[in-house]
């Protein structure tokens, strides 16, 4: 056997090995992916299952994984917990909607101005508006609480929505300014020639072209407000004003027959997760692009 043929055979053998190896890697990757998916989803699935357990099932020691019979009893107890779930859902949604309105109402015109008008000291004003970026809102809660107590805004949707808007403002402004800047100037010039004033240019030309940015700002304002905890804990101190996370945190130590009502607690977790996951499934692409421009810029 000549040297050359041997070399060819060897390389052929190596090729086969490589192919086998590649196949093995492919299966391995598949298995690892599936395992990861299971580990990530399991806690959520378990929470939903726990919310469907009967009170007896939920209080079993040792605990059982899957309910023996499915029931909505836990949801019924949550429905009537303290001031009732409808009240807490209304508080959470109301605050979130106000946060969206405030975030858009403040950052859309500001982004427009920063992108399109020769405002004096523009750079400095922009940095000032991003002030919340360098000072964590957690540090500002005491003075905000004192101010709101004086204005009668504690225990109100609007007060908490202002706190949530403060958190979201730098991100929203950044997104709005950038997307206004990306709009071609020719569009605006055409409108100005047609005799439109700046407000008409904003509403007729700009807003329709920056819809993705509006969705991103809305999405993140909603998620932030819906999930925010510490600000709500500070600003709300009457049962009837609580948002969902606060009333659930209070429920974790509330005893039913000598123990925490685990079924009701997980019913609450399930309900607070539903809108977040729903919006995620609907608006996945905005989530990712929003995160990219927000965190890494």
């Amino acid at each position: 056997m000549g040297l050359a043929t041997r070399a060819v055979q060897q390389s052929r053998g190596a090729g086969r090995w490589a192919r086998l190896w590649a196949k093995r890697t492919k299966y391995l990757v598949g298995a690892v992916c599936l395992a990861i998916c299971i580990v990530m989803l399991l806690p959520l699935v378990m929470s939903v299952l726990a919310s469907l357990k009967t009170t007896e099932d939920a209080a079993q020691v040792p605990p059982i994984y899957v309910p023996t019979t499915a029931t909505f009893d836990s949801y019924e107890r949550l429905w009537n917990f303290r001031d009732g779930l409808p009240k807490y859902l209304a508080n959470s949604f109301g605050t979130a909607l106000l946060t969206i309105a405030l975030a858009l109402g403040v950052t859309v015109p500001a982004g427009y101005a920063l992108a399109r008008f020769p405002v004096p000291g523009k750079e400095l004003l922009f940095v000032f508006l991003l002030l919340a970026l360098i000072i964590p809102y957690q540090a500002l809660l005491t003075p905000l609480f004192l101010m709101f107590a004086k204005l009668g805004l504690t225990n109100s949707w609007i007060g908490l929505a202002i706190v949530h808007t403060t958190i979201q403002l730098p991100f929203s402004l950044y997104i709005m300014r950038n997307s206004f800047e990306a709009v071609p100037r020719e569009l605006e010039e055409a409108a100005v020639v047609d005799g439109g004033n700046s407000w008409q240019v904003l509403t007729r030309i700009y807003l329709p072209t920056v819809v993705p940015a509006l969705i991103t700002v809305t999405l993140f304002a909603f998620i932030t407000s819906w999930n925010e905890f510490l600000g709500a804990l500070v600003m709300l101190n009457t049962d009837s004003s609580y948002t969902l996370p606060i009333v659930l945190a209070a429920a974790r130590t509330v005893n039913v027959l000598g123990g925490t009502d685990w079924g009701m607690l997980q019913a609450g977790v399930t309900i607070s997760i539903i809108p977040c996951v729903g919006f995620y499934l609907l608006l996945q692409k905005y989530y990712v692009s929003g995160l990219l421009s927000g965190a890494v810029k």
Partner: protein
Amino acid sequence: MYAAKRNKLIGLMYLAPALIFVSAFTAYPLLQMMWLSLNDWTLLTPPEFVGFDNFVKAFSDDQVWDSLGFTLKYTLFITPILMIGGYLLALLTATNSPLRRFTRAVVFVPVVIGLGASSLLWYWLFSARYGLVNQALVDLGAIEDPILWLGVDANISNWAVIISVVWKVLGFGMILFVAAIQAIPSEINEAVVVDGASYWQRVTRVTLPLTFRTVLLVTLVSIIGSLLAFDQFYIMTAGQPLNLTATSVFYVHLNSFPYLKLGYGAALSLILAVIILFFTVVQLVLTRRSET
């Protein structure tokens, strides 16, 4: 001339709501916090100016150091797990096959839910008697007696919280790393493959260096987030045992609200804000430099 002046005014008009909002709800509270930190105030008596007494007091307050130490420990433990875990997941799922995309989407799901909700979920999972974590460990034969995860031993509590937060935010780093890895021009990868480099050589010599800036930025975001940890400890351990798992924000909150030591709380907030500021400045400098 006239038009330019008019445009300036119109611009300022559009900017006005934002300027008023930030002045009223960020700048003014910031100044008020600075003033508060120089006063002794418990809401019951009028504020009394004490100069830097609150800061001096903070310096010799053991609980300040304990909470700061615990927060640093938590940050030090969780950050490498999040970065390495997130990066490995990104390497695994960066190519766009259906299964990998699906895995990416699934890992990201906990990121979108609230930290409060996820903490309540894990508060139950880690419950000693009713929780499924202990039950699963018993069923797997890993332990015989239930572990008292939360509120009894500070270290075990810390790890329980870390596990829950890793589950919750792992997808955040992953998604940003995936974007960075996908942004690497394919010619570079192909050139390295032709050179006969193995997969891990390619990762260490090409992928990691080319995504290093993203790794740094995500690390900073993660450090800042961990230094401000509150919800997860408030819900899962309530600071127990003996306030040993009370983070810095937790301690600030305790002083400001249940104890109503507003001046002292403000001083502690300010100290924390300065620590955070350091990391934020590094982050901003990094972002800026990359733009130019």
